[in-house]
């Protein structure tokens, strides 16, 4: 499936929705809702509420994350907000501030 990439110099202020993987290297403010995976890479900055199946964060996220499957915070990420997902992984070195809720009846 086509892969969507938001490049590092791109700034989006608004809503993104779709049914495919999304890679963010730039800046997104607003709201993101996907039915697939979201990757916030090291250079990526997200100030948005996120609703997806999977999220992998290596960059910065400010906002609430709700995933139907899994949220993974990689070692250099910085996340501020609440996370709701049945599986949540936080790697050594990740910085996170917010609530975690794994009590989602999914799977």
């Amino acid at each position: 499936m086509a892969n969507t990439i938001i490049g590092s110099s791109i700034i989006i202020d608004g809503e993104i929705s779709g049914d495919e993987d999304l890679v963010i290297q730039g800046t997104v403010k607003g709201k993101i809702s996907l039915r697939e995976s979201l990757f916030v890479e090291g250079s990526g900055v997200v100030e948005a509420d996120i609703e997806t199946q999977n999220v992998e964060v290596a960059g910065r996220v400010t906002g609430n994350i709700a995933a139907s499957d899994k949220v993974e915070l990689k070692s250099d990420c910085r996340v501020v907000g609440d996370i709701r997902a049945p599986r949540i992984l936080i790697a050594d070195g990740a910085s996170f501030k917010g609530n975690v809720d794994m009590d989602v009846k999914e799977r």
Partner: protein
Amino acid sequence: MANAKGLTETGNTVIGQSILISGKLSGDEDLTVRGRVEGELSLSHTLIVEPSGVVKANVSVKNAIVSGVVVGNITATESVELTREGRMVGDINAPRVIIVDGASFRGRIDMGEAEPGRQASERPVSRPVVRAAPTLPSRPMIPAPSRAMPAPQPVRAPPPPPPPPARPAPPPAPVAKAKPVPPPPPARPATKPAPPPPPPPVTVAAGGKKKVMLKKRGR
């Protein structure tokens, strides 16, 4: 895995087919749209709208290549090109506008009136290429271009002596005739600044005059 894939393509933004972005989008790199973008779009580089792409936005970019659908105005600092599959409704404001046979467009075009001397010298570089494509349709279809390209046609109309489609018998003859038609060749080469006394070549409209100049320089 997918992460690595993303990293290899750094620097090129692609909006995939199923993605909808509504809001403001800005950036300093090329952007390829295969999905939908609504709102406002400003780039300092090139916007490429692929056949599956839909942009409903006011767009300001350096270059735009439209093979999909654009509804909204485009302001480009360099060029706007509507390809064969491109469809657009809205106004175009750019120094170079290219509309290829098969494209559909409704709206205004403003190329910014050519200042006599300078802009003209910039243009011929790319124009001949631009003109060449639609003028010589490689396919036999004749009526198509007239429908698809409303803008360039009136310009071409004034020098009509060679209507090649009308007579199939002597095809090379009219072409040969057409070229020597512009009679004042050495009068004003590109290097000269615009001569204030306007040399009236014939009673040709402003558009027709421009065209003559272009032809000369193109060769």
